[in-house]
């Protein structure tokens, strides 16, 4: 079985998910994990599928992109058998006046500490920029990471908080 990484992005309109999913179903591509969301008027889909050859799927998606409003890419990837958590889960929140390099600077601190970002979203609303990231950190480094994040945030003129993620299960 081929595992495929697919991205589709374009100006939002009703029917993008239905159009793409129909193509996948017709070619026998089984949609596994995905995120599909609207980003400032663009609709973005990131999908992992199992099934056909990458070239066949790319060709089948091509008509959707023919009007120039959608961009679709397909790439064969190596199945990794699922990823195990590598550390303790934390939530990083950053907010402040928008400026260049906030995500770059904050995530570099996490990476240098051996952390791994597992989910991240950003929002720009007016001049307010908000970053929320879910991060796995090696045991015992969170205090030091929080200190470094605070120093970097001060240089950028933004606020930052790093809190243990809520791991309660029902």
């Amino acid at each position, binding site marked *: 079985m081929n595992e495929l990484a697919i991205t589709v992005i374009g100006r939002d309109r009703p029917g993008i998910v239905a159009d793409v999913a129909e193509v996948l179903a017709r070619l026998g591509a089984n949609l596994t994990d995905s995120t599909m969301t609207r980003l400032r008027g663009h609709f973005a889909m990131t999908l992992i599928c199992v099934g056909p050859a990458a070239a066949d799927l790319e060709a089948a998606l091509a008509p959707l992109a023919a009007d120039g409003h959608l961009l679709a890419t397909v790439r064969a990837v190596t199945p990794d058998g699922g990823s195990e958590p590598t550390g303790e889960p934390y*939530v990083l929140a950053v*907010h*402040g006046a928008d400026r260049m390099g906030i995500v770059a600077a904050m995530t570099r601190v996490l990476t240098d500490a051996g952390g791994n970002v597992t*989910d*991240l979203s950003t929002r720009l*609303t007016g001049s307010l920029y*908000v970053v929320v990231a879910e991060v796995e950190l090696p045991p015992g480094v969170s205090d030091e990471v929080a200190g470094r994040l605070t120093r970097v945030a001060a240089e950028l003129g933004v606020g930052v908080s790093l809190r243990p993620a*809520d791991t309660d299960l029902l």
Partner: protein
Amino acid sequence: MTGPEYAGLGGWTPEKLGVPGEVRPVVTAPEPVLSQPGPEVDPTSAEVVRLAADLVATMRVSPGCVGLAAPQVGVSAQVFAVDVTGHPKAVTVHGTFVLCNARVVEASRWKAGREGCMSVPDLTGDVKRASRLVVEGVLPGTGEPVRLVTDGFEARALQHEIDHCAGLLFLDRVAGAHAIYQRKVYL
């Protein structure tokens, strides 16, 4: 249980401040004052009494507003107003009140809920807060210490406002990367 022996607000109302409140402009993020921890205040000072009255007045003219903290009107200080009267989610309701130098002394039964904020007008977020809460603070004007035992929506409002006084927004406590939402309904 330790702490003061008094309970509730002892019949306090904003009218006891003795000054008419004026509506002040509400600042929005990323205004730096919203991210600064506010200092404790002298609750008997004329300045704090005026601020308390202004917070109540500004809260009352703001549709859907159930609480307003000093940093939201540009003043870095541990003062806030709360009024959840009539809110459909409220259980225990202490009416309109202002607290100075408030702190959480007991918190339990944490529950997730959606929060918004006049200072973050375009976003809402999922935040876990204690639904059983004990808060101690002092009343503006008299400086009388109070101990409030509350729950549910009023407890959430109190924690949100105490956070403001510590320079924290609900954004600092959202549950995860997908727990922030573009606001769809403005009250």
